[in-house]
């Protein structure tokens, strides 16, 4: 195995003598209960990984049905009502049950304490509580789906959601309310852990950029999610008792709902993307064997994105009759977000420059991220400018824009991270050739799906309709074909990663020759992470330190 990929930095131990460590967090305790009652952050991460994968495929199934319906101009696969439910549940499941917890709750949970040199999160039991809240919320959402679904759109737009629809709005809103608490507790746990649990010598500017990115995302979770919670409470009260806070006939204002909802839901897109950017920094540095170019700038750009992210929400409401002067200000602020995002992209590009770049699977996903996120981000600037927004908003251009950021960006980063840390989490490698095929398939499928949607949107095809004029059919067929390829690209990792649990090559503690603290302990790590609390005596991404360390080391596994 190691010979066939000899040109890369993957250094697997000699397979004739390789063995797994005897005591790991996986086999330390046995039985289902030991998992369900665990307070170990690594086990909780695995629980999350299984549950979000489940919801990812549910959300993906809805996406498949949407694309299948849009194959033909007429609503012939499902009726318009059912179509409304499909895109609503696709949105709710993907956003609240996959994207928001994706990287923080799985990779973040697993890695954050180890990267900081701590034995666990600050509040292990609250960490477990987060997962249970997520599961309760998920079960409620599933019951809402099974009982007949919701058709408000994931945005719960009032007064549509409060007065005009007779579907399971309250069940879905309660599910999101509870899932919100799961992410609030997750955020609190992260922030306290980062502030209080760093090992000796781990200063703020020695932390890996993954931590910085998750820190910024946690700030957004803690400050934004409660506002979503109160908004959903108001929607539920309005539905139940008809109190009229969003109802114009009683003096309420539907625009207030928009303000409250987007005050959370705009920062929420940064909750989703920031941890992915953290993964990018780790993978790009490791696979080009170079310290991240402009470490401080990348670290602060995460915080800047979090800060600016709170002052742009009105750009979702430009066509809703807000004051044109405030729209002007929000348009300017929206464009400012492009600055820290561009800082990241440029710094990653400069990290690659003159680095010893290798092309492992995680790196392929990262290249995908850099291209697709750039397109997604730049189209965001189009949408942030007032004149363009009037033309493009509520069309497929918007749909393509946020899928480029969320799927092309975040999902690529998530898969990059899963592949990159898979050997650490399981102790085994994934099959390299197959996974490269999956990465390329995903990239091709993605572009085929969403590039046509930019054109469709520009030509004026509105989002959220089951039918469309026949002249749009060619592009829609292309998009559906792309979605099929994309679906295939996502099924592959699911299959071969499961396969690798038993048959993958044994990875050893540091197959990537990476510098992070997590790579200096066995794979999979023992329950207490470190036998003795480490002292951080070097900068992050210090490859000379690693070279010195490995030179004097006898190579053993386990």
């Amino acid at each position: 195995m190691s010979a066939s990929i000899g040109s890369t930095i993957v250094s697997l131990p000699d397979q004739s003598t390789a063995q797994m460590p005897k005591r790991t967090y996986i086999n330390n305790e046995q039985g289902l209960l030991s998992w369900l009652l665990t307070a170990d952050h690594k086990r909780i991460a695995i629980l999350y990984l299984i549950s979000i994968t489940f919801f990812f495929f549910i959300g993906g199934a809805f996406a498949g049905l949407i694309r299948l319906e849009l194959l033909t101009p007429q609503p012939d696969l499902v009726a318009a009502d059912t179509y409304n439910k499909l895109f609503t549940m696709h949105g709710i499941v993907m956003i609240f049950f996959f994207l928001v917890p994706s990287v923080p709750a799985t990779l973040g949970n697993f890695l954050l304490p180890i990267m900081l040199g701590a034995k666990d999160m600050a509040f292990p039991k609250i960490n477990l509580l987060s997962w249970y809240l997520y599961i309760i919320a998920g079960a409620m959402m599933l019951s809402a789906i099974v009982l007949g679904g919701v058709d408000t759109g994931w945005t719960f737009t009032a007064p549509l959601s409060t007065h005009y629809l007779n579907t399971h709005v309250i069940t879905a809103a309660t599910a999101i309310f509870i899932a919100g608490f799961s992410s609030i507790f997750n955020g609190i746990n992260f922030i306290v852990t980062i502030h209080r649990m760093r090992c000796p010598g781990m200063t703020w500017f020695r932390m890996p950029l993954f931590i910085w990115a998750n820190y910024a995302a946690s700030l957004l979770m803690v400050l934004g999610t409660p506002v979503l919670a109160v908004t959903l409470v108001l929607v539920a009260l309005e539905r139940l008792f008809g109190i009229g806070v969003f109802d114009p006939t009683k003096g309420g204002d539907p625009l207030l709902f928009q303000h409250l909802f987007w005050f959370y839901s705009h920062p929420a897109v940064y909750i989703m993307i920031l941890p992915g950017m953290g993964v990018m920094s780790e993978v790009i540095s490791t696979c080009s064997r170079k310290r991240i170019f402009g470490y401080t700038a990348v670290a602060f750009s995460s915080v800047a994105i979090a800060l600016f992210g709170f002052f742009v929400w009105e750009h979702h409401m430009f066509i809703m009759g807000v004051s044109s002067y405030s729209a002007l200000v929000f348009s300017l602020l929206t464009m400012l977000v492009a600055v820290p995002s561009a800082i990241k992209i440029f710094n990653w590009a400069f990290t690659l420059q003159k680095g010893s770049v290798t092309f492992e699977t995680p790196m392929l996903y990262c290249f995908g991220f850099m291209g697709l996120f750039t397109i997604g981000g730049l189209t965001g600037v189009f949408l942030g400018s007032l004149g363009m927004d009037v033309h493009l908003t509520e069309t497929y251009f918007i749909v393509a824009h946020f899928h480029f950021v969320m799927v092309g960006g975040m999902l690529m980063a998530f898969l990059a991270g899963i592949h990159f840390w898979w050997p650490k989490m399981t102790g085994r490698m994934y099959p390299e050739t197959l996974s490269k095929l999956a990465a390329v398939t995903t990239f091709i499928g993605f572009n085929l799906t969403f590039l046509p949607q930019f054109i469709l949107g520009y030509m004026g095809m509105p989002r959220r309709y089951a039918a469309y004029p026949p002249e749009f059919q060619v592009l829609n067929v292309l998009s559906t074909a792309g979605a099929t390829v994309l679906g295939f690209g996502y099924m592959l990792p699911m299959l071969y990663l499961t396969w690798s649990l038993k048959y993958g090559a044994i990875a050893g503690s540091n197959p990537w020759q990476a510098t992070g603290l997590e790579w200096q302990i066995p794979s999979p790590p023992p329950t207490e992470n470190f036998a003795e609390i480490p002292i951080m005596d070097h900068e992050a991404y210090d490859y000379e330190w690693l070279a010195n360390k490995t030179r004097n080391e006898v190579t053993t596994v386990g």
Partner: protein
Amino acid sequence: MDSALATTDPAEVHAEHGHVSLPQHRHHFETAEQQREAGSFGMWLFLLTEIMFFGGMFFSYLIYRNWYYPAFVVASNQLNVTIGTVNTMLLITSGFCMAIAVWAAEMRKRPLLRTMLILTALLGVIFLGLKSDEYYEKYELHHIPGNNFNISMFTNPAGYGIKEPPLSPDMAQRTQVFFFLYFAMTGMHALHMVIGLGILCWLIRRAHRGDFTAGYVAPVENFGLYWHFIDIVWLFLYPLLYLINRHPLH
């Protein structure tokens, strides 16, 4: 382990900071001090999320009060300001008892801690009792927003013996927005108190066992923060809801 990652001996760290290991010390913290700091920092962050939660409602209040000021004035004057004032004093006293309780835990005075926690809870219960009486009054007057809401008191105040200018039917409908915000905000506040009382019962039981008077005071301290937070929310609610346009000297 490896040479570059030097290690610290946990025992040494303990000796260095002069801390005694408590039974409540969790294994993943290096020192008891670290555990205590993490706990209180976590609590402050949680309170931050609570501020954001109430913030959404305060924001709605701000907007509607500006739009429908006459309705807000008249509706606010129908609130029972006596009960509101008594309740404010009760909560402040309750907060004072809680502060004494934290001090008692730190000074390891078990009987005082127990008494103060019970007093805190008792004052909270009286607050909620008075609050529910107030809610019942609103129910009798048909001032609960919804289908049974009655605006006649605001369109024809003279008929009820109230010295207020009558509102147009349109503006009188807006009193409903005030009462909705009143119920939503005080209701959320009351819900927080009910949860707080539940935790207090648990604290009283543990204080009775002497859990918090042997150097481990974190739960009392953190609950104190929560209880004071509820007090502070009320200190904003009281003037904003009850005192919009009261002039006792005129």
